[in-house]
């Protein structure tokens, strides 16, 4: 790459030809503000519609101000990012954006983490001289996502996530002029579109246009209801990100503090989704081995590869977009749902609690989990296995609201029996983690020999699609891993064309896996944050005395006391599911 040099403010900068001004500036530590620009470096995808015009800079010799996000650096260029002219223009642009933006910041769900609010403050805008017409779009409340397009600033980041990263295509720019907005086709609701509720649009929205459907008030009601037993399960990825909301650096694991906080909030039992993740490995791993053995012995009715089914957004994706392949994914329910099913049968029976008196709450890095709780097949006589799910962000908000000093909380452990877990389940939260956990168990169950090395480095990392061949004592097991639904689509198209070479494929809808979920502290496309969170999970795995799901003593006991063995009739009834064709 050809090197060029240019001057940005006082700094002489060397960069590669083709770099935009905003990138060159950022690499040198000069932050040019922007609202629409988003660079997903890990995915080689950029959102730069140059629509917000906040990043305008002065380039010597040019008549007009230039958008730094879309103007390439040239040799000898002189750029000023904060001249009087630039500051005035930036202020006017902000005033125009604010002229039709609601001013209800005090009660907006994004207040405090809104980039428009932050920039308004930074630019010290204290009045809006233009009082314009306001849009009156109807607010949509879906089980997972709330969409208030009156707050949209047309940055189109959500559209980039939905179309380019996830290839879901639910959201697009529609209408023209003042009526322009971002919407599913025909002005439909998200619930009536192919939306998977992955929440990646929420993860990047700079303003309050896209937020999660917040269930914390319902939770407070239940916690204060003396007739209810309220128990909680926490997903693996939550512990690796919750700390960020309390000033810990990304990648700080706060498992023990989280358990203490949940106890202080008044949950009767603090359990762990990780327990159910170990259970998932038992069921899914056994299913993989059964299908693999049948296939290898020539059974033509068995299809390979087996696809994982832990991720509800991914389940939605194939139900809408690949209805011809509903028989390929594993029938195993997600860990969240396995937990709910066991809690509301085995545990209630053991404790002598009536199903109706038990509330199962999950803390998830995910917005699709909110929707998943409501799927009809996961309930009995209208009583859901998991009552509702709240996100990592909502939990952080609740801890702050309850005046709990999170940073100085002591560490504590989860309750038993549904809180015991192995290292294999902790890594479920990172892309490749489910595969690695499954390999640890499948290898030992298949070969009957102990695994020499537990770390499968080749399935780790943030590469979009990972492939590995694992020697199962003579048999070469080929595995594939994709995170981000756009990558998943590539592997699915291979299967559709009959070109897939894999025996097992793990798919997670969100970039990085659950650690980058739509319910986590907003990642806003920053892959360094994802990397740090994933490291935290692998670190926790290493520190666990037990690191293989089938060695979890409470899982062994659960099978002895209640389920019999993996894939038993009872296990099928409680821990497996079926899929629906949702294509139109």
């Amino acid at each position, binding site marked *: 790459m050809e090197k060029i040099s240019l001057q940005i403010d006082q700094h002489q900068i060397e960069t590669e030809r083709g770099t935009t001004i905003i990138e060159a500036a950022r690499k040198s530590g000069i932050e040019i503000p922007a609202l629409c620009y988003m660079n997903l470096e890990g995915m080689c995808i950029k959102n730069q519609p140059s629509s917000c015009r906040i990043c305008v800079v002065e380039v010597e010799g040019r008549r007009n101000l230039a958008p730094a996000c879309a103007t390439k650096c040239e040799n000898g260029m002189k750029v000023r990012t904060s001249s009087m002219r630039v500051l005035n223009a930036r202020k006017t642009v902000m005033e125009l954006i604010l002229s039709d933006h609601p001013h209800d910041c005090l009660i907006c769900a994004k207040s405090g983490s809104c980039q428009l609010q932050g920039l308004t403050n930074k630019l010290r805008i204290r009045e809006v001289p233009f009082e314009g017409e306001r849009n009156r779009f109807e607010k949509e409340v879906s089980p997972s996502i709330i969409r208030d397009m009156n707050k949209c600033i047309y940055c189109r980041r959500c559209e980039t996530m939905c179309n380019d990263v996830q290839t879901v295509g639910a959201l*697009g720019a*529609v209408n023209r002029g003042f009526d322009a907005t971002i919407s599913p*086709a025909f002005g439909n609701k998200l619930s009536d579109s192919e939306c998977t509720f992955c929440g990646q649009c929420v993860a990047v929205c700079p303003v309050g246009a896209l937020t999660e459907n917040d269930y914390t008030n319902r939770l407070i009601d239940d916690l204060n209801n003396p007739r209810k037993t309220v128990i909680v399960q926490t997903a693996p990825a939550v512990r690796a990100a919750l700390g960020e909301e309390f000033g810990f650096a990304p990648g700080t694991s706060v498992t023990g503090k989280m358990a203490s906080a949940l106890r202080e909030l008044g949950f009767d039992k603090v359990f762990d989704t990780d327990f159910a993740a170990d259970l998932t490995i038992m069921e899914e791993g056994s299913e993989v081995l059964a299908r693999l053995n049948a296939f290898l012995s020539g059974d033509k009715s068995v299809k390979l590869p087996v696809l994982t089914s832990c991720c509800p957004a991914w389940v939605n994706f194939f139900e809408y977009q690949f209805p011809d392949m509903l028989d390929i994914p594993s029938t195993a329910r997600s860990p969240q749902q396995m937990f709910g099913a066991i809690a509301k049968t085995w545990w209630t029976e053991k404790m002598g609690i009536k199903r109706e008196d038990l509330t199962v709450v999950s803390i998830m890095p995910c917005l699709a989990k909110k929707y998943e709780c409501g799927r009809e097949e996961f309930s009995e006589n209208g009583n859901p296995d998991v009552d509702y799910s709240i996100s990592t962000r909502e939990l952080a908000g609740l801890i702050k609201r309850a005046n709990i000093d999170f940073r100085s909380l002591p560490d504590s452990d989860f309750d038993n029996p549904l809180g015991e877990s192995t290292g294999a389940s902790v890594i479920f939260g990172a892309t490749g983690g489910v595969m690695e956990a499954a390999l640890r168990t499948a290898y030992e169950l298949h070969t009957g020999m102990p695994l020499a090395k537990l770390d499968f480095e080749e399935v780790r990392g943030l590469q979009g699609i990972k492939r590995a061949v694992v020697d199962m004592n003579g048999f070469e097991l080929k595995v594939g891993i994709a995170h981000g639904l756009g990558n998943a689509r590539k592997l699915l198209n291979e299967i559709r064309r009959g070109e897939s070479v894999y025996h097992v494929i793990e798919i997670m809808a969100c970039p990085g896996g659950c650690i980058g979920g739509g319910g986590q502290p907003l990642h806003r496309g920053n892959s360094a944050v994802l990397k740090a969170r994933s490291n935290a999970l692998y670190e926790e795995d290493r520190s666990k005395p037990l690191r293989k799901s089938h060695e979890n003593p409470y899982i062994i006991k659960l099978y002895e006391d209640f389920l019999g063995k993996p894939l038993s009739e009872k296990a099928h009834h409680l821990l497996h599911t079926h899929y629906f064709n949702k294509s139109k």
Partner: protein
Amino acid sequence: MPEIKLPQNKVDQLLAICKEHGNQEGELINILHKAQQLFGYLPDKVQCIVAKELGIPVSKVYGVVSFYSFFTMKPKGEHPISVCMGTACYVRGSERILDEFKRLLNINIGETTPDGKFSLDSLRCVGACGLAPVVLVGEKVYGRVTPADVERIIKEFE
């Protein structure tokens, strides 16, 4: 919106149009033009078929349809009426003519009468400013129209 069943022969023609254009995403606007000629408008179903054939999300197709004012998702009347609101026609009183059409047909711009006979639109200049104000009904041009003429024009087509 009521469920509309598209006649199979027209659906076949639509598929042929897509194929003619190589099922290419870049041909979307051309395909929609022809589809609108074929159906008279672009209902949801037509857009879904085009999206499927081109392998693109239907939200993208709808984005294009809702952006360009030429495309319509409402069926046009048997006799589409267009009142010119270009500068010349406007200063010579075309707004009062448009109001008269609205009053007599009891519809707004962009709407169609319940019997499907008339639809009402405005347009910008048909290049016959000497005849201002101008009204088009289908291909027929009426010049120097006054509000009093409107009823007579409608009667011609009833």
